[in-house]
Every structure is written in C-alpha cells, then in structure tokens.
C-alpha cells in the first residue's frame, strides 16, 4: 500500500478527513479524480499560510485536515500560522512535509527542510514523526492521524530494506538491535544507510545497537537512556541541523535524567548541504553506509584516545 492508497482508504471510511495541498500533489495526485473524495480535496494554490488557516477553520468544524506541501515551505512559510492557528487552539491538523532533509536532493538550500524537527517540536502539543521508509510511514500514519493532536510527519518514500514492527505507538521507538560498543539513534531516510553501516561494523566484530526513533515528539526517553547506559558511544545520525533536532532531544533527555554519556552527532553543523543527486549528496556530506561506519569508528577511536589520556 502506498501513501495515496492509505489516505484514500482512511478518508473514504471517515468523512472527517479533508485532504489539502498548497499545490503539491506528488503524494495525492489521483485523489481529485475520485468522485467520492472530490469535495474533500482542497488545493489552495501556492498559499501555505492560507492553507493552514483554512485547515484550522475546517478543524473547528470537526474535520481532520491532512495537509501537504514541500516540508521547507510548509514548516517555514506557514510557521506562524501553524503555531498560532493550529498550535494555540491545539487542533488535529495533520501536516505532511514532502522532501524533508536530504530528500530535497538537487533543489538547493531554499528547499532544504533541515530545521523542521527543531521548529515543529517547539510548538506546544505538536507531535513530530519521521518514518524510516515508505513501509514504516504507512505503518505509522493511521495512528498519527487518529490522534487528537496536531502532528507533523516527514514524508519518506524510500523503499524498505527490512520489515518494521507493525505495532507503531506514538512516543515509541523501534529498537532494531542493542549493542555495547556503539548505538546509533537515527530517523527518516538515513535509516537504511545506518542499518548498512551497522552491518559493516558488526562484520569487524563490534557490538552495534540501532534504533529507528520514529516518534521524535513525544520521544521514547527510555530507549535513549538505555542506549546511553549500555553503549560506550551513542551516535545520533540525522539529516537535520545539529541544533534542535534529535541530537538536542537526546541531550535534553540525558540532562533531565542526570546522565552523562558519550553522545556524538553525525548531522549538518551550521551549514546547508551540497545540492546534487541524492547519492552524490550522501557521498559528499558523508552519509553513505561506508562513511557513516568510518566516521562512527573514528569517533569511537578518538574518544578511546581521550579516555587513555
């Protein structure tokens, strides 16, 4: 099942659902052709602010609007509308951000949503999700949309490498493996690459943990704490600025729980990424499986050196 089939099925079964877009139809191209959904499909044109305001108005009348736009414009052009209309009123408006993070590949920095997790989680009551791949997204969305909270989801159409835990719960991570040397905490489209990095490191005899975070807000604190206690090193891998994303979330969780641990980021530090075909972006920025493995190993070694000193 793909995104469009899922949203059609859910909207056909429940007339509260309204499908909206600010003229970004990539995920929902065929919805307006379905006569049973045509009057619940609203394309406001290239007007992210008006789309969000209207979604709030529809939600006031008991609807559950699922809104679509490119992640950068949805979360940033319309930010104050999301915060003020959806956030203050705590309305069940469901935001789907298309091409978040590295998925904007060759578009350039205007289209790079790599602060979206940071700014969306800053809104009281807003939930934030990042599925690892298309299958994970389809597993997660029914529960996300069914909740009475506003929510932002990073859309992800990457094909899965593994089958995911079908029992997704809001606030729960998917623990793929636990390990005593390094635990990777990651989310979204980088999951597959981190999975392969884990396999490469295991082939070298290391004990490697891997967590697909899935739900960034609310976040699975228990999983973060366990990783910090069990592993020599925790590496947070994210296609997001180092500020405000998962690395910050982990820091907040550990600090609140009075825990100190070796936690290092593989993320975008104060820089937009080099625009190119996705495979070239990953290569250039150091997020291929090989580079993730090598960088994690480098961190482990430099940390070990520091401890010896």
């Amino acid at each position: 099942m793909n995104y469009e089939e899922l949203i059609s099925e859910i909207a056909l079964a429940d007339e509260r659902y309204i499908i909206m877009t600010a003229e970004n139809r990539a995920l929902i191209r065929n919805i307006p052709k379905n006569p049973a959904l045509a009057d619940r499909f609203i394309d406001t044109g290239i007007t992210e602010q008006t789309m969000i305001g209207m979604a709030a108005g529809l939600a006031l009348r008991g609807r559950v609007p699922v809104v679509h736009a490119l992640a950068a414009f949805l979360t940033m052009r319309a930010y104050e509308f999301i915060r003020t209309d959806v956030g203050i009123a705590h309305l069940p408006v469901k935001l789907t951000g298309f091409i978040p993070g590295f998925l904007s590949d060759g578009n350039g920095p205007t289209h790079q949503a790599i602060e979206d997790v940071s700014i969306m989680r800053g809104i009281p009551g807003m939930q934030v999700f990042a599925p690892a791949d298309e299958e994970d997204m389809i597993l997660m969305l029914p529960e996300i949309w069914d909740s009475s909270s506003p929510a932002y989801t990073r859309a992800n159409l990457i094909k899965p490498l593994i089958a995911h835990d079908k029992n997704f719960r809001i606030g729960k991570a998917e623990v793929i493996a636990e390990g005593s040397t390094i635990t990777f905490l990651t989310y979204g489209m980088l999951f597959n690459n981190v999975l392969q990095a884990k396999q490469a490191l295991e082939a070298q005899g290391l004990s490697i943990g891997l967590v697909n975070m899935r739900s960034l807000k609310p976040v699975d604190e228990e999983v973060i704490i366990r990783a910090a206690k069990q592993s020599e090193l925790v590496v947070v891998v994210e296609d997001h600025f180092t500020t405000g994303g998962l690395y910050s979330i982990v820091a907040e969780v550990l600090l609140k729980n009075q825990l100190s641990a070796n936690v290092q980021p593989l993320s975008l530090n104060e820089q937009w990424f080099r625009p190119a075909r996705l495979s070239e972006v990953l290569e250039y920025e150091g997020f291929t499986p090989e580079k993730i493995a090598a960088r994690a190993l480098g961190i482990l070694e430099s940390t070990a050196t520091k401890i010896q000193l």
Partner: protein
Amino acid sequence: MTEGQITDLQKLALAVRENIVRLSTDGGCFTGASLSCADLLVYLYSHYLNVNPSNLTDPNRDYLFLSKGHDVPALYSLFAELGFIEPSRLANHLQANDHIYWHPNTNIPGVEFHSGSLGHLPAVAMGVAMDCRIKKHSNKIVVITGDGELNEGSIWESALVASAYKLDNLIWIVDRNYFQANVATEELIPLDPIHKKFEAFGWNAIDVDGHDFNAMHETFTSIATNGKPSVIIAHTVRGKGLPSIEKRADRWFCNFTHDEVSALLTELHENKMAELNSETLVVR
C-alpha cells in the same frame, strides 16, 4: 428598520462605548480601534447574525471572526450587554484570574477563535465556510479585519483563494477607519481603492457607513449569493463617539487616568471635548 429599533441600537451602542471607556484605564486597551467598530458589532449581533448565548455550539449558527483582534474591548463590551458573559467580568480586565486581555480568546463564550496576529482569520473563516458548504449548511460566516491589516500578504492570498472557491457564504468586513496603529493608512501604505482591489480579485464589494444602522441593515440584508464572496467596506471613524480622541493617530491604545475616564463618560453623553493629559503610548 423602525425608529424604535434604531433607538434600541443606539442605546446598546452607547452602553458598549461606556464599557469600552471603562476598560481604557489601569493598563488600558485599544480604545480608538474599539470605538470604530462598536456600531458595526452592535448591528451584526442584534439584527444580522444568528448567534446568541444559547446557540454557541449549534453547527447551524452564524460565525463572526474578529481578525483585528485589538478591538476586542468592543466585542466583550457587547457580550456583557447581550448576556454572553456576566457584565461583572469586565472588571477582571487584565487580571490573571480571568481571560479579559488585549486580544480575543476562546475562553470567552462567543469568541469563535483567538486572534491578535493580523491577517489570520480570513483563512480560518474560509475553512469554516468551506465546511458549511460541503455540509450544505446555510450559515453566514463573517470576518472583520482592520484596514491597516490589509498590509499583510496573507490577506491577499486569502482573497484570491476565497474567490477561486466561490465562497459566497463568506462576508468580509473591512473596518475602514483610515488609521493603522500609529499613522493614517494613506500616509504609509495607501490602500484606496479597496473596493476596486477586491472587485479585481473577484469579490462583490460594497461600501457602507459603519455608523449608520439603517444603511448597514440595507447593505447586509441585500448581500448577493452569486458565487462570489462579498466584502463590505465599512467606513468608520477611529474613536467614534468621543470627539476628543476621534481621528487621532495617538489614540489607538489608551490608558487613561480614572478622572479622565469620568470626563470621557461625560463626554460620551454630552459629546463635548474632554481634557486629556495621558501620555501617548506606542504599543506597536
């Protein structure tokens, strides 16, 4: 409307203005902006909108969205007179134990949505209008913006989209008092001709005197449902009813002394100029 009905509206408007003046102290409020839309709100809630304290959860009620949120003293003052809230609650203005503060919020019965950030509620009203249309309800959806508020880009986005979707159950009122926060609108970002701007965006546009109850009644009861949304440009006077503060750029937000409030209440009744010495406040 009959003469009796007009007299009743005038009495109600006077009571609303008294309440607004009483709120303009001990921290103050947006007095000038509130006085400009007082007659408009009095008319709408008395003769036009099907909304009252007993039908606030009825999906078939009419909706009013106050997008120029800083004039909420006018709304609360009216709500106190019409039984939406206990009149005694107005005395809680700016107290943390109640929610009577400078911008509308849904803790107050009758407020459909919070506002304060300009250029938001046309879109929210459009969402409500869209749902009413899908459900084939015949509610009227009214949104009031200021004229200075028309500076916001989101205003024109909304005007485009409402027209594209032919939301003829939507009525947008512009409180045209020719002032924005600190200056006259035409001296900063000229807005005229507002009428032609909306017409060019595909709207029915009608000008009306926002202090003339008969004219308002005639205008609002003859709005066409012709596949176009309608904008009513209500020509008003900032500070209306108090000649001492009318049309003054520095009387948008006012924090009067208690003595000045007494003088203004007298002025309201006698329409003579009050002696005012409160300092000018720049809030925005």
